[in-house]
Protein backbone atom coordinates (compact mmCIF):
# COMPACT_ATOMS: atom_id res chain seq x y z
CA UNK A 1 0.00 0.00 0.00
CA UNK A 2 1.35 3.40 -0.99
CA UNK A 3 0.99 6.44 1.19
CA UNK A 4 1.80 10.15 1.13
CA UNK A 5 2.45 12.63 3.93
CA UNK A 6 1.50 16.31 3.56
CA UNK A 7 4.21 18.75 4.66
CA UNK A 8 3.45 22.30 5.77
CA UNK A 9 5.62 24.87 7.53
CA UNK A 10 5.19 24.54 11.28
CA UNK A 11 4.23 20.88 11.40
CA UNK A 12 6.50 18.95 13.77
CA UNK A 13 5.08 15.41 13.86
CA UNK A 14 5.77 14.75 10.20
CA UNK A 15 8.82 12.60 10.89
CA UNK A 16 6.87 10.52 13.41
CA UNK A 17 4.14 9.96 10.82
CA UNK A 18 6.67 9.07 8.12
CA UNK A 19 8.40 6.61 10.50
CA UNK A 20 5.10 4.97 11.49
CA UNK A 21 3.91 4.59 7.89
CA UNK A 22 7.30 3.28 6.79
CA UNK A 23 7.38 0.66 9.53
CA UNK A 24 3.79 -0.47 9.13
CA UNK A 25 3.43 -0.39 5.33
CA UNK A 26 6.98 -1.54 4.61
CA UNK A 27 7.74 1.40 2.32
CA UNK A 28 8.48 5.06 2.84
CA UNK A 29 5.59 7.42 2.07
CA UNK A 30 5.86 10.06 -0.62
CA UNK A 31 5.94 13.60 0.71
CA UNK A 32 3.98 16.51 -0.75
CA UNK A 33 4.70 20.16 -0.04
CA UNK A 34 2.10 22.84 0.67
CA UNK A 35 2.37 24.38 -2.81
CA UNK A 36 2.04 21.06 -4.66
CA UNK A 37 -1.13 20.91 -6.71
CA UNK A 38 -0.96 17.20 -7.38
CA UNK A 39 -0.58 14.23 -5.08
CA UNK A 40 0.92 11.00 -6.43
CA UNK A 41 -1.23 7.92 -6.89
CA UNK A 42 -1.46 6.59 -3.32
CA UNK A 43 -3.93 4.65 -1.18
CA UNK A 44 -3.53 6.77 1.95
CA UNK A 45 -2.79 10.45 2.59
CA UNK A 46 -1.75 11.51 6.10
CA UNK A 47 -1.71 15.06 7.47
CA UNK A 48 0.53 15.09 10.56
CA UNK A 49 0.38 17.13 13.73
CA UNK A 50 2.17 20.30 14.70
CA UNK A 51 1.49 24.00 14.46
CA UNK A 52 1.13 24.84 10.78
CA UNK A 53 1.62 28.56 10.14
CA UNK A 54 2.12 29.09 13.85
CA UNK A 55 -1.58 28.47 14.52
CA UNK A 56 -2.14 32.02 13.22
CA UNK A 57 -5.76 33.15 12.81
CA UNK A 58 -7.15 29.76 13.91
CA UNK A 59 -5.44 26.37 14.17
CA UNK A 60 -5.23 24.89 10.67
CA UNK A 61 -7.00 27.83 9.02
CA UNK A 62 -4.14 28.99 6.79
CA UNK A 63 -2.97 25.47 5.96
CA UNK A 64 -6.49 24.50 4.91
CA UNK A 65 -6.37 27.18 2.19
CA UNK A 66 -3.03 26.09 0.68
CA UNK A 67 -2.96 24.52 -2.81
CA UNK A 68 -2.05 21.06 -1.50
CA UNK A 69 -5.32 20.92 0.42
CA UNK A 70 -7.31 21.37 -2.79
CA UNK A 71 -5.44 18.33 -4.09
CA UNK A 72 -6.26 16.42 -0.88
CA UNK A 73 -9.94 17.33 -1.27
CA UNK A 74 -9.92 16.06 -4.85
CA UNK A 75 -8.36 12.76 -3.76
CA UNK A 76 -10.81 12.42 -0.88
CA UNK A 77 -13.70 12.96 -3.30
CA UNK A 78 -12.32 10.08 -5.37
CA UNK A 79 -12.37 7.82 -2.30
CA UNK A 80 -8.70 7.93 -1.31
CA UNK A 81 -8.19 7.33 2.42
CA UNK A 82 -7.20 10.45 4.38
CA UNK A 83 -6.04 10.63 8.01
CA UNK A 84 -5.48 13.92 9.86
CA UNK A 85 -3.88 13.75 13.28
CA UNK A 86 -3.97 16.66 15.75
CA UNK A 87 -3.18 19.74 13.63
CA UNK A 88 -4.07 17.49 10.68
CA UNK A 89 -7.57 17.08 12.17
CA UNK A 90 -7.82 20.85 12.64
CA UNK A 91 -6.79 21.36 9.00
CA UNK A 92 -9.39 18.86 7.72
CA UNK A 93 -12.11 20.61 9.72
CA UNK A 94 -11.00 24.06 8.49
CA UNK A 95 -10.90 22.72 4.92
CA UNK A 96 -14.52 21.57 5.26
CA UNK A 97 -13.61 17.91 4.73
CA UNK A 98 -14.94 17.11 8.21
CA UNK A 99 -17.80 18.85 10.07
CA UNK A 100 -17.58 20.87 13.28
CA UNK A 101 -14.75 22.91 14.78
CA UNK A 102 -11.84 22.46 17.19
CA UNK A 103 -11.70 25.12 19.86
CA UNK A 104 -9.34 26.09 22.68
CA UNK A 105 -9.15 23.43 25.42
CA UNK A 106 -11.72 24.11 28.14
CA UNK A 107 -8.89 24.21 30.71
CA UNK A 108 -7.06 26.81 28.53
CA UNK A 109 -3.96 24.67 29.10
CA UNK A 110 -1.82 22.80 26.60
CA UNK A 111 -2.25 19.11 27.44
CA UNK A 112 0.51 16.57 26.88
CA UNK A 113 -0.33 13.21 28.40
CA UNK A 114 -1.69 9.75 27.75
CA UNK A 115 -5.45 9.28 27.50
CA UNK A 116 -7.75 6.31 27.03
CA UNK A 117 -9.86 5.98 23.91
CA UNK A 118 -12.96 3.90 23.35
CA UNK A 119 -13.52 2.50 19.87
CA UNK A 120 -16.99 3.98 19.33
CA UNK A 121 -17.34 2.40 15.89
CA UNK A 122 -15.21 -0.62 14.98
CA UNK A 123 -16.93 -0.95 11.62
CA UNK A 124 -14.86 1.66 9.75
CA UNK A 125 -11.87 1.32 7.47
CA UNK A 126 -9.78 2.87 10.26
CA UNK A 127 -10.93 0.74 13.18
CA UNK A 128 -11.67 -2.71 11.77
CA UNK A 129 -8.50 -3.96 13.49
CA UNK A 130 -10.04 -3.18 16.90
CA UNK A 131 -12.91 -4.73 18.84
CA UNK A 132 -16.16 -2.75 19.29
CA UNK A 133 -15.95 -0.81 22.54
CA UNK A 134 -12.27 -1.70 23.01
CA UNK A 135 -10.33 0.71 25.21
CA UNK A 136 -6.90 1.69 23.89
CA UNK A 137 -4.26 4.11 25.13
CA UNK A 138 -2.98 7.06 23.11
CA UNK A 139 -0.82 10.13 23.69
CA UNK A 140 -2.32 13.57 23.18
CA UNK A 141 -0.49 16.90 22.86
CA UNK A 142 -2.57 19.92 21.93
CA UNK A 143 -3.97 23.29 22.97
CA UNK A 144 -7.04 23.33 20.73
CA UNK A 145 -8.73 19.95 20.73
CA UNK A 146 -12.10 20.89 22.14
CA UNK A 147 -14.41 19.48 19.48
CA UNK A 148 -17.63 21.38 18.87
CA UNK A 149 -20.53 20.84 16.51
CA UNK A 150 -24.08 22.15 16.57
CA UNK A 151 -26.81 19.87 17.92
CA UNK A 152 -28.02 18.85 14.47
CA UNK A 153 -24.54 17.93 13.23
CA UNK A 154 -23.80 16.10 16.45
CA UNK A 155 -26.98 14.02 16.19
CA UNK A 156 -26.10 13.13 12.61
CA UNK A 157 -22.51 12.17 13.49
CA UNK A 158 -23.60 9.97 16.36
CA UNK A 159 -26.57 8.51 14.50
CA UNK A 160 -24.52 7.57 11.45
CA UNK A 161 -21.62 6.07 13.39
CA UNK A 162 -19.25 8.84 12.33
CA UNK A 163 -17.94 9.27 15.86
CA UNK A 164 -15.12 6.75 15.81
CA UNK A 165 -12.99 7.47 18.90
CA UNK A 166 -14.17 8.82 22.26
CA UNK A 167 -12.12 9.72 25.32
CA UNK A 168 -12.81 7.01 27.90
CA UNK A 169 -12.77 6.58 31.66
CA UNK A 170 -12.87 10.30 32.43
CA UNK A 171 -9.72 11.11 30.44
CA UNK A 172 -11.29 13.80 28.20
CA UNK A 173 -8.36 16.25 28.19
CA UNK A 174 -9.98 19.22 26.45
CA UNK A 175 -13.71 19.51 27.18
CA UNK A 176 -14.64 18.05 23.79
CA UNK A 177 -18.40 17.70 23.38
CA UNK A 178 -19.65 14.16 24.17
CA UNK A 179 -15.98 13.11 24.71
CA UNK A 180 -15.42 13.08 20.93
CA UNK A 181 -11.79 12.39 20.01
CA UNK A 182 -12.09 11.38 16.36
CA UNK A 183 -14.68 11.42 13.56
CA UNK A 184 -15.04 10.28 9.96
CA UNK A 185 -16.83 11.99 7.07
CA UNK A 186 -20.15 10.67 5.81
CA UNK A 187 -18.44 8.56 3.15
CA UNK A 188 -16.16 7.04 5.79
CA UNK A 189 -12.83 7.60 3.99
CA UNK A 190 -11.62 10.72 5.86
CA UNK A 191 -10.64 10.44 9.53
CA UNK A 192 -9.62 13.23 11.88
CA UNK A 193 -8.52 12.66 15.45
CA UNK A 194 -6.71 14.70 18.10
CA UNK A 195 -4.71 11.83 19.71
CA UNK A 196 -1.41 10.64 18.23
CA UNK A 197 -1.70 6.92 17.37
CA UNK A 198 1.53 7.19 15.36
CA UNK A 199 3.39 7.62 18.64
CA UNK A 200 2.28 4.26 20.04
CA UNK A 201 3.03 1.64 17.40
CA UNK A 202 5.86 -0.49 18.84
CA UNK A 203 7.36 -1.75 22.09
CA UNK A 204 9.93 1.05 22.15
CA UNK A 205 7.01 3.49 22.45
CA UNK A 206 5.69 1.62 25.48
CA UNK A 207 2.94 -0.11 23.55
CA UNK A 208 1.40 -0.60 20.13
CA UNK A 209 -2.21 0.46 20.73
CA UNK A 210 -2.14 2.83 17.75
CA UNK A 211 -0.78 0.35 15.27
CA UNK A 212 -4.09 -1.29 14.32
CA UNK A 213 -5.42 2.07 13.13
CA UNK A 214 -2.75 2.28 10.43
CA UNK A 215 -2.97 -1.45 9.67
CA UNK A 216 -6.72 -1.03 9.21
CA UNK A 217 -6.36 2.03 6.99
CA UNK A 218 -3.61 0.38 4.95
CA UNK A 219 -5.70 -2.76 4.50
CA UNK A 220 -3.30 -5.01 6.42
CA UNK A 221 -5.29 -5.44 9.63
CA UNK A 222 -5.37 -8.95 11.00
Amino acid at each position, binding site marked *: MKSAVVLLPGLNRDRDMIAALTKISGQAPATVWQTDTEIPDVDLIAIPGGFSFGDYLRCG*AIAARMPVMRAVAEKAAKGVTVIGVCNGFQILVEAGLLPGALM*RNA*SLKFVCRQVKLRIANANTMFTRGYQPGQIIRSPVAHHDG*NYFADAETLARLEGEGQVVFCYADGTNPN*GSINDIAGIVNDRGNVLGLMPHPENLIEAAHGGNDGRALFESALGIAA
Partner: protein
Amino acid sequence: MKARITVTLKNGVLDPQGKAIEHALSGLGFDGVGQVRQGKVFDIELTGTDKTKAETDLKAMCDKLLANTVIENYSVAIG
Protein backbone atom coordinates in the same frame (compact mmCIF):
# COMPACT_ATOMS: atom_id res chain seq x y z
CA MET B 1 -10.76 52.89 1.92
CA LYS B 2 -10.55 51.31 5.33
CA ALA B 3 -12.67 48.55 6.71
CA ARG B 4 -13.05 46.90 10.08
CA ILE B 5 -14.20 43.31 10.40
CA THR B 6 -15.34 42.08 13.78
CA VAL B 7 -15.52 38.35 14.43
CA THR B 8 -17.38 37.07 17.48
CA LEU B 9 -18.31 33.65 18.80
CA LYS B 10 -21.87 32.55 18.17
CA ASN B 11 -24.24 32.35 21.10
CA GLY B 12 -24.15 28.96 22.74
CA VAL B 13 -20.52 28.30 21.81
CA LEU B 14 -18.44 27.86 24.95
CA ASP B 15 -15.75 30.56 25.29
CA PRO B 16 -13.24 29.44 27.91
CA GLN B 17 -10.98 32.44 27.17
CA GLY B 18 -13.85 34.88 27.75
CA LYS B 19 -14.63 33.02 30.97
CA ALA B 20 -11.02 33.36 32.17
CA ILE B 21 -11.04 37.10 31.37
CA GLU B 22 -14.34 37.44 33.23
CA HIS B 23 -12.78 35.87 36.34
CA ALA B 24 -9.64 38.00 36.02
CA LEU B 25 -11.71 41.19 35.85
CA SER B 26 -13.62 40.30 38.98
CA GLY B 27 -10.29 39.38 40.60
CA LEU B 28 -9.11 42.94 39.87
CA GLY B 29 -12.06 44.25 41.83
CA PHE B 30 -14.31 45.27 38.94
CA ASP B 31 -17.74 44.59 40.31
CA GLY B 32 -20.76 44.18 38.10
CA VAL B 33 -19.02 42.42 35.22
CA GLY B 34 -21.39 39.93 33.61
CA GLN B 35 -20.49 37.56 30.81
CA VAL B 36 -17.34 38.32 28.77
CA ARG B 37 -16.96 36.99 25.20
CA GLN B 38 -13.66 37.30 23.34
CA GLY B 39 -13.52 38.07 19.63
CA LYS B 40 -11.19 39.32 16.90
CA VAL B 41 -10.88 42.58 14.97
CA PHE B 42 -9.29 42.91 11.51
CA ASP B 43 -8.48 46.36 10.12
CA ILE B 44 -8.15 46.07 6.36
CA GLU B 45 -7.01 48.71 3.89
CA LEU B 46 -8.55 48.49 0.44
CA THR B 47 -7.18 50.18 -2.66
CA GLY B 48 -10.52 50.42 -4.52
CA THR B 49 -13.18 53.11 -4.10
CA ASP B 50 -16.32 51.12 -4.90
CA LYS B 51 -18.07 50.59 -1.56
CA THR B 52 -20.55 48.02 -2.83
CA LYS B 53 -17.79 45.88 -4.32
CA ALA B 54 -15.74 46.28 -1.14
CA GLU B 55 -18.60 45.03 0.98
CA THR B 56 -19.10 41.99 -1.24
CA ASP B 57 -15.37 41.26 -1.19
CA LEU B 58 -15.08 41.68 2.57
CA LYS B 59 -17.97 39.30 3.19
CA ALA B 60 -16.35 36.75 0.89
CA MET B 61 -13.08 37.17 2.83
CA CYS B 62 -14.95 36.42 6.05
CA ASP B 63 -16.70 33.36 4.63
CA LYS B 64 -13.55 31.98 3.03
CA LEU B 65 -10.94 32.71 5.68
CA LEU B 66 -11.38 35.31 8.41
CA ALA B 67 -14.28 33.66 10.24
CA ASN B 68 -15.10 30.05 10.91
CA THR B 69 -18.82 30.23 10.36
CA VAL B 70 -19.37 26.98 12.22
CA ILE B 71 -18.65 28.79 15.48
CA GLU B 72 -18.28 32.49 14.61
CA ASN B 73 -20.36 35.43 13.36
CA TYR B 74 -18.86 38.47 11.65
CA SER B 75 -19.77 42.05 10.88
CA VAL B 76 -18.26 44.39 8.29
CA ALA B 77 -17.92 48.16 8.69
CA ILE B 78 -16.51 50.37 5.92
CA GLY B 79 -15.09 53.87 6.37
